[in-house]
């Protein structure tokens, strides 16, 4: 092959042919796909607009500076409402600051992360190892409702304020791209991260494995933990979170556990029924609106006609009240409550008439 190529090169020594050969050779090393030129080149300004990430080695960090004082101003106007004046608030987000010490700044390990310390919240400053992370995130995602609205200098300022709260920098500090690497050397948990490759690499072996025992396996068979009774309804009524058909139902978790299987079944089957009835039931109040009844009748008091509650009161205890009212609604009438006649409502079905009349007789509630 080599000999042939050399021969060929000699033979096709015309410049144009050599160029054609070179192009061919390039093409075979990098076979051009027919879709390769779909899309277009990104313009430098476009890349600059989007490429805002800042790495732990500060690649991507724009030049700028901000003081703790300026940070205090920005913080109080744009950050404190969610995070608290001192970054301590647990109202909207977990606290940002707290739980770190001068000793941690020295060692780079936050002692409150050790077992048994039981510090109530793991704050951001307790966890984060890289100051670049904070700069990047404040810049890209804060303030919460207006992300990316801070100027570069104000991002430095807000970060300076946070670092001062955590006593990483003094109150008169001006954080900048020039000194941020020094700040990194004081981050309280800077040595607190382990890159654990077995859970990063798809081909890794996990650190916890079981064995596939099939018979008489060793188990402690102790009930390690169960949900306490008081938490039974913490997630609402699970019955309403399960299908109404099938081999199982959701338990009615808003009530204590039934004692027997029969009780359980009665309970869950019993509550399935109303759901069914509701779906087919007539919504009287919706009917009152859609048929313009409420244009003249108040729920309680007289408007043009009497309030529904007044009608209910008038016919309370009258045995044939429902039948009477069905007739009145269907055919209309005048004189009982004043001179203004009520038009008949022949468009209502018998079932709808009965539902409305029944609702009134039951007290119009």
């Amino acid at each position, binding site marked *: 092959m080599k000999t042939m190529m050399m021969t060929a090169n000699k033979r096709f020594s015309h410049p144009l042919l050599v160029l054609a050969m070179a192009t061919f050779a390039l093409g075979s090393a990098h076979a051009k796909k027919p879709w390769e030129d779909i899309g277009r080149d990104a313009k430098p300004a476009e890349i600059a607009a989007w490429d805002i990430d800042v790495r732990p080695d500060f690649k991507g960090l724009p030049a700028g500076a901000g003081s703790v004082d300026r940070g205090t101003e920005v913080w109080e106007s744009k950050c404190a409402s969610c995070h608290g004046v001192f970054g301590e608030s647990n109202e909207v987000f977990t606290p940002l600051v707290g739980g770190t010490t001068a000793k941690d700044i020295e060692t780079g390990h936050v002692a409150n992360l050790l077992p048994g310390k039981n510090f109530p919240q793991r704050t951001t400053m307790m*966890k984060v190892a890289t100051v670049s992370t904070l700069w990047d995130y404040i810049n890209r995602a804060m303030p919460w409702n207006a992300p990316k609205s801070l100027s570069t200098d104000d991002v430095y300022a807000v970060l300076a304020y946070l670092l001062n709260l955590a006593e990483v920098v003094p109150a008169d500090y001006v954080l900048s791209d020039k000194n941020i690497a020094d700040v990194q050397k004081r981050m309280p948990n800077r040595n607190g991260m382990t890159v654990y490759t077995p859970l990063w690499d798809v081909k890794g072996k996990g650190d916890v494995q079981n064995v596939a025992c099939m018979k008489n396996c060793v188990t402690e068979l102790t009930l*390690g933990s169960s949900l306490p009774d008081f938490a039974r309804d913490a997630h609402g009524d699970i019955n309403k979170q399960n299908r109404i058909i099938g081999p199982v139902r959701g338990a009615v978790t808003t009530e204590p556990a039934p004692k027997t299987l029969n009780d359980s079944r009665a309970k869950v089957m019993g509550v399935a029924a109303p759901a069914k009835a509701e779906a087919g039931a007539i919504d009287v109040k919706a009917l009152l609106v859609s048929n313009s009844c409420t244009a003249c009748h108040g729920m309680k008091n007289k408007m043009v006609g009497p309030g529904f509650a007044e009608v209910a009161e008038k016919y309370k205890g009258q045995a044939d009240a429902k039948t009477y009212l069905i007739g009145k609604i269907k055919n209309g009438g005048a004189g009982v409550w004043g001179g203004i006649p009520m038009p008949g409502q022949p468009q209502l079905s018998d079932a709808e008439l009965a539902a409305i009349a029944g609702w009134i007789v039951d007290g119009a509630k």
Partner: protein
Amino acid sequence: MPINQDLNIPMGNALDQPIGRIIPAPENHLSADGLETARKARRSFMGKALAMGAGIAAASKAAVAAPEGEEAILKLPAHTTGLGQGVAANAYGMPSKWESNLMRRESPGLTRVPQASVSFCPLQGLFGIITPSGLHFERHHQGWWDIDPSQHRFMVNGLVKRPRVFTMDDLMRLPSVSRIHFIECGANTGPEWGNVALPSVQYTHGMLSCSEFTGVLLSTVLEMCGIDKKKARYVLAEGADGSSMTRTIAMDRAMDDVMIAWGMNGEMLRPENGYPLRLVVPGVQGVSWVKYLRRIEVGDQPYATKDEAVHYIDLQPDGQHRQYTSIQECKSVITTPSGSQTLLDKGYYNISGLAWSGRGSIKRVDVSVDGGRNWRTARIEGPTLSKALTRFNFDWVWDGKPAILQSRAIDSTGYVQPKINQLRAVRGTRSIYHNNAIQSWKISENGEVSNVQVY
């Protein structure tokens, strides 16, 4: 044959062997005792009395005991005797109104802001392996958007010969693939590291979904941009939402099966799931599947973004955090019957559940009904796909006594799903992320299923 005076129906013998499940019938107005009597009576009646030709004339309180048969059959309903609705009455079809109990739900108290929260997928009611798109779990970091796809742009920059910009038109012209993959949040089952905290599988395992995704392989696009293979070690994926979510992806993942996806279950992605473009990182925790994907940067170092330096880091017993824990290891859970469900009767049950692995496919699932002492191998329903949910089923006859159900999955690498105490022995109880423990469901004599930890 004795007659039950209260119900005015014939009494039969108690069943020696519990059979099947009971049929939901209009016994609902009966007391528990009446219900049970009616249930037995019906079986007895149908099995014996009817065969003997004995008719019971009395219209009893228990409609079910009507000798002619069940009203649901004998009285033809409106849908059998009337005219139904026309085509396109619902131009985009929705589930039956009877299914409204199954919906995405938040876990009360888990988060305080709905824009940075989670809604859980109702696994307890789903079949097979595909999650209906409208029930796909949600995790937003700064609220969701419905982005105009014609204005969406996707950029590749960093260690590439030519940084490129793509419109959706461009991307959708490229050679596409369609693949079924699960997505699981790294914090799924996280509240259970220390103890039982959640009542049902929706909340214990519901940050899990599985869809058919359609898109272009990231490797195809990176090749187009002339990736610098000598230097490139990582890519950064970035979203277009307010949080501009960023995550570092390993280069071997990026060049393997990572997809830039626009399609989900035959249609475009739903807005809550990243419309019009999201990253699909098979086997890797959901936070890396960046939604509203706007940019991929190729680099030579990891980025330590907020969601890999403050969150999604696993605290170990020595006080160190594990960073860049991405793989969702082999896991399984029984979805029927599961926490806070109630078994309706003794007898046969088809125990059904899901198994998955971020390292490959599911090789086997074993099920125990005695708290892990003895196991039998479940039936695997096809298809068995790499880094996808796999459905398993298991025959079981409940004798009415307390039982503890568990499932244990084994993946194609031979890895066996661990018990919670095995995980705790190594990783402690404060890890939050990557809890892939065997789940235990206790069946009590009253038929209720509850979440317990047994090992």
